[in-house]
């Protein structure tokens, strides 16, 4: 158990986030959003805004500099007169103060030739299409055997449609940037990002700069959950505004503007068909998904991909269809794909358990598999069954009465539910350097991000172990694109990818140190490790080749989630009384922060199950609920007893640490466990999230 290395900074308020760097002569940006859902900008009236004392610049499609090569449509800020969705940034003001900028933004008058926006996701939309791939690089459709036919001939058939709403990441720190150009045309960005290197290269491409002329600094990031995985328009807007004003600027996207401009989880419509024998063995699984993207940029959530991994079944089909709508662009939100997909799959497994009269844990065990069903590859490790069994023992599952709607405590109905979790053990190529300092300490540098995951601490533990040094003698510096290039804090791949580079750099450093001893070089002596020259000794690593040479295995983490709920029979209010997650995620590097990650994911899962829904305004476009008073994330009183545990898992096929990612799996399956518990409590099967009093009351 190691406390976060930046704990003291975080509890004393000295940890600096993007907006908080002292920059001289800084000005402030406020943005204007499109007030129509689709159309053309016909005029931008800036006179009133410009007349305000303290206004330095107004930017829009009428005067914005031409960008070089924005890598995606969302980054082509102010490059066209077309409005692609309501809430899109259409103008911005730079002012001497926050108050002036905000007032001036109110005075910018944008005129439009509006058209009716098309914003409603439906399965019979004429523009439905098959994307070339789904995020990040999976085929849109897969098929094995004769799923339709086998399904139709199965003894037990479940054929249901689940829908999930749009949801917003809502990190507590808004997307924020300070942008500074120096006299040589070099750009520095203090940015709230999950990937300094990614922002560096994408912003460089956008402005036609050499990447080495862009520096991105982000040592502390107030959460992201995917929305800060790649730069969003606010970053480009800030850099552009700083150029226009000839001064450094700050731009934090106001909470209300985040809903349209910084990404969200697509709503999904998922038809699932499970065909099984009477003993619950699956013969066929069909998972057909419809979801949305914007007209600016394609984002195809990989919702059906967990169905390719979870259970044995000789006949299987998965498919994804997209509808491009006049809506904000969806993007990554914690476990994209697995989160909505496993909500549906694990709810349907519960339906199958009831249809076959088999205990839901036993049903999952019967359909376990030691090879990844679609690829046929062996799993590097798969301990789903161990998680289910360990969880069942801890949670007190044995002897559960499957009858629904029968356990009363006063006017409350009580029920329990279970669901499985899974998440791929991704890993990306990375670079790192390790340094031995003359004073006997070590420094590790990598452009990784600690968005609250505990990455800084985990990497320090990994470095200390490799160097055989005390943790206190290891300093990890991250969150700066000036450090060796690192992959994004996404796909739960950070510790695996960055950690491997850190291990290799530290190993190389040890070899050098040993060489320095053997060669008898001068300098200060170092803990018996050798002699360190005054400038220090440095070693670098690049894991690109190592990754390419990896053996072929299916690498995934698994888990089991248990929930107990109470449902108020008079109000329809659902309360999660207790929740337990048991995970198999390889070696856990730091139990303290790992537990927080799992519980944090499960907490977001409670929000998904019961609270979170972004409602599309079908007449005017954009989301109706655009703040934290109307978009409900779990509050302290919503979370009672949530606990997480893990089974020992030793897997030699992963990486030098033996670790799988843990940042996302906590949310996967959580909503299904809660929904299954609601069914057990009430007998009501809700197939749409969130489960609210309004959905339950008519049937209670």
């Amino acid at each position, binding site marked *: 158990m190691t*406390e*976060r290395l*930046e704990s*003291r*900074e*975080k*509890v*004393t*308020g*000295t*940890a*600096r*986030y993007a*907006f*908080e760097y002292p920059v001289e002569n800084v000005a402030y940006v406020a943005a204007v959003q499109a007030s129509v859902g689709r159309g053309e900008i016909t005029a931008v009236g800036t006179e*009133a805004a410009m*007349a*305000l*004392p303290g206004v330095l610049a107004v930017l829009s499609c009428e005067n914005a500099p031409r960008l070089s090569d924005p890598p995606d449509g969302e980054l082509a800020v102010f490059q066209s007169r077309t409005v692609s969705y309501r809430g899109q940034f259409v103008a911005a003001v730079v002012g001497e*103060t*926050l*108050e*002036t900028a905000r*007032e001036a933004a109110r*005075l910018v008058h944008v005129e439009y030739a509006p058209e009716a926006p098309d914003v409603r996701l439906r399965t019979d939309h004429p523009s439905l299409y098959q994307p070339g791939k789904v995020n990040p690089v999976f085929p849109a459709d897969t098929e094995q055997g004769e799923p339709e036919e086998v399904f139709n001939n199965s003894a037990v058939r479940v054929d249901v449609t689940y829908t999930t709403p749009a949801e917003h*990441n809502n*990190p*507590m*720190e*808004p997307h924020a940037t300070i942008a500074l150009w120096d006299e040589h045309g070099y750009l520095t960005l203090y940015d709230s990002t999950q990937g300094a290197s990614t922002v560096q290269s994408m912003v460089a491409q956008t402005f036609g700069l050499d990447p080495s002329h862009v520096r991105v600094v982000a040592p*502390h990031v*107030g959460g992201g*959950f995917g929305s800060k995985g790649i730069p969003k328009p606010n970053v480009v807007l800030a850099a552009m505004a700083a150029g226009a004003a000839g001064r450094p600027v700050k731009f934090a996207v*106001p*909470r*209300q503007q985040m809903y349209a401009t910084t990404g969200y989880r697509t709503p999904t419509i998922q038809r699932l068909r499970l065909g099984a024998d009477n003993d619950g063995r699956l013969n066929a699984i069909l998972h057909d998904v419809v979801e949305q993207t914007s007209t600016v940029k394609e984002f195809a959530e990989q919702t059906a991909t967990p169905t390719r991994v979870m259970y044995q079944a000789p006949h299987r089909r998965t498919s994804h269809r997209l509808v491009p709508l006049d809506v904000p662009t969806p993007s990554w939100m914690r476990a994209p794909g697995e989160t909505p997909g496993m909500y549906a799959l694990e709810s349907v497994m519960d339906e199958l358990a009831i249809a076959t009269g088999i205990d839901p844990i036993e049903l999952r065990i019967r359909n376990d598999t030691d090879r990844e069903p679609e690829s046929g590859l062996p799993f590097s490790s798969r301990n789903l069954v161990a998680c289910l069994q360990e969880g069942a023992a801890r949670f007190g599952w044995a002897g559960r009465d499957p009858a629904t709607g029968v356990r009363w405590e006063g006017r409350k109905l009580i029920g329990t539910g279970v669901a499985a979790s899974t998440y791929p053990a991704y890993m990306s190529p990375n670079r790192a350097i390790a340094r031995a300092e003359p004073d006997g300490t070590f420094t590790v540098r990598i452009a990784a991000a600690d*968005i*609250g995951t*505990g990455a800084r601490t985990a990497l320090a533990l990994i470095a200390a172990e490799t160097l055989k040094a005390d943790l206190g003698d290891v300093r990890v510096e991250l969150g700066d694109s000036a450090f060796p290039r690192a992959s994004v804090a996404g796909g739960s791949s950070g510790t695996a990818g960055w950690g491997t580079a850190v291990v290799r750099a530290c190993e190389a450093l040890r070899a050098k140190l040993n060489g320095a001893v053997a060669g008898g070089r001068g300098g200060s002596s170092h803990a018996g490790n050798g002699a360190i020259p005054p400038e220090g000794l440095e070693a670098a690593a690049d894991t690109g080749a190592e990754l390419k040479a990896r053996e072929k295995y299916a690498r995934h983490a698994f888990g089991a989630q248990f929930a107990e709920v109470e449902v108020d029979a008079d109000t329809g209010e659902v309360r999660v009384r207790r929740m337990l997650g048991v995970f198999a995620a390889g070696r856990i590097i730091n139990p303290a*922060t790992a537990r*927080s*990650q799992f*519980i*944090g*994911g*499960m*907490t*977001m899962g409670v929000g998904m199950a019961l609270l979170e829904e972004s409602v599309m305004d079908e007449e005017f476009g954009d989301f109706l609920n655009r*703040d*934290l*008073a109307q978009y409900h*994330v*779990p*509050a*302290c*009183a919503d*979370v*009672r007893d*949530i*606990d997480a545990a893990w089974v020992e898992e030793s897997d030699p096929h992963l990486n030098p640490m033996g670790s799988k990612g843990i940042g996302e799996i906590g949310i996967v399956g959580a909503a299904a466990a809660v929904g299954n518990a609601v069914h057990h409590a009430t007998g009501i099967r809700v197939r749409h999230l969130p489960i609210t009093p309004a959905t339950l009351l008519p049937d209670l």
Partner: protein
Amino acid sequence: MDSESTPVHADITLVVNGREHRLSVDTRASLLDVLREDLGLTGSKKGCDHGQCGACTILIGGRRANGCLALAVAHDGADIVTVEGLARDGRLSPVQEAFIEQDAFQCGYCTPGQLCSATGMLDEAGQGWPSTVTGDLGSEPVLDDDEIRERMSGNLCRCGAYVGIVAALREASRRKEAAEA
């Protein structure tokens, strides 16, 4: 141009973490923005600017308040404590210590607000203030987990550190009582 668009400034005095500051503030400026942008006290965070998240929670005259909802000009002479003022002479407060021990945060962005809120909350409970979950309004409220959760629900944490936050405050309140006994 609207005449109400022209900035108006006012001179005020704020005592922040025991230090007096004389300032000329834009009458539209929130206390939060004055702390962060004018005084460089960026420990207090802005999560929503609308009183909906609690990231900006500070203590005004010892009571917790949302800095984003407080107009600076209306707080001339106010005595303010921010997260930067919770530690004394480099020693963390019991609440800060308990947060570290229980890993009651991840990204840390809601944390300054949680800490100020918790500090104010423990005082309120100590003074016998009830909450909506207090059963018997006649007797001294006992700060059990339900009371802590209710009283801390004005401070959102998207990282989902509530389990740790409640554990930390259980511990901090126990220590506070032990110290007072």
